[in-house]
């Protein structure tokens, strides 16, 4: 059943209230709006597409379970990001207690994410040297990020890759603005030290 047109025009917060009132189609609309966002959000934490989908699905399930407790006190996107961040942090903890699986950015999921030129509409041939450089840089960055503590990694991902403001990060992580500011600084400082030793900044 397709989402009724009336729902497609509602803001996210209203959709949650509709869901609360028992209108299940509102949830369909939320999923349609945010499935790509949530998979990409999780991917930025775990850098594994299959795992990102699993975590993202769990995020929607938690959101559904949470529907009766929902109150319009914060932006919907902040709530969803908070749920997903917590799930990703759980994944970090799980990985820490198990053997870490190194992931290859160009295999497993069958998607060649390095084929950026065609997606960006750039018809010129990709520069092979640039591709090799980006691939190698990516592996090093992934490795460096893994060495940061979950808290520092999280603030860095939320700020650097998702572009959240300090205030939004504080809301997502349940921290004060000052704590976020200090964590971001420390995360960057550690990152810089590791970059200095592993990557020659051009």
């Amino acid at each position: 059943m397709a989402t009724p047109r009336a729902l497609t025009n509602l803001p996210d917060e209203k959709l949650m209230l509709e869901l609360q009132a028992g209108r299940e189609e509102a949830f369909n609309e939320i999923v349609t709006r945010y499935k790509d966002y949530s998979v990409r959000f999780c991917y930025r934490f775990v850098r594994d597409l299959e795992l990102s989908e699993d975590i993202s699905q769990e995020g929607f399930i938690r959101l559904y379970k949470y529907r009766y407790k929902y109150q319009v006190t914060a932006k919907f996107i902040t709530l969803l990001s908070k749920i997903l961040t917590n799930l990703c942090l759980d994944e970090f903890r799980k990985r820490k207690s198990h053997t870490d699986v190194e992931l290859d950015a160009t295999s497993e999921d069958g998607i060649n994410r390095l084929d950026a030129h065609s997606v960006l509409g750039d018809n010129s041939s990709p520069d092979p040297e640039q591709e090799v450089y980006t691939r190698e840089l990516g592996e090093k960055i992934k490795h460096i990020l893994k060495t940061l503590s979950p808290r520092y990694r999280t603030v860095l991902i939320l700020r650097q890759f998702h572009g959240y403001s300090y205030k939004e990060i504080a809301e997502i992580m349940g921290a004060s603005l000052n704590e976020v500011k200090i964590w971001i600084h420390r995360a960057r400082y550690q990152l810089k030290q590791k970059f200095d030793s592993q990557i020659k900044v051009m």
Partner: protein
Amino acid sequence: MTDPAEDLIQLSAYLDRELDGAEAGRIAALLLTNSALAEEYKLLKQIRDELSCWDKYDCINVCASPAFEDKLTKRLRQLRGVESKSPGASSNLTIVSRN
């Protein structure tokens, strides 16, 4: 006299455009007179730009798979069954993309 450690914290916030006008002005002025701080700022900015560039590249095709909604629908049906204690009683739980 300001605390150099505090200045470094503020420098990171300055990079993120998170400082208010007066404090942003103070850091901007410091960057003109303190070469060590200016060098630190340059490095942080370079790393930030490298990370952003790589992330954009790495995430270029990342989106939900075509099976995403089917899988979620199945899980929601199970959940709804548990919630209502009457499996299969749910309706309107098939998620169909507008796309």
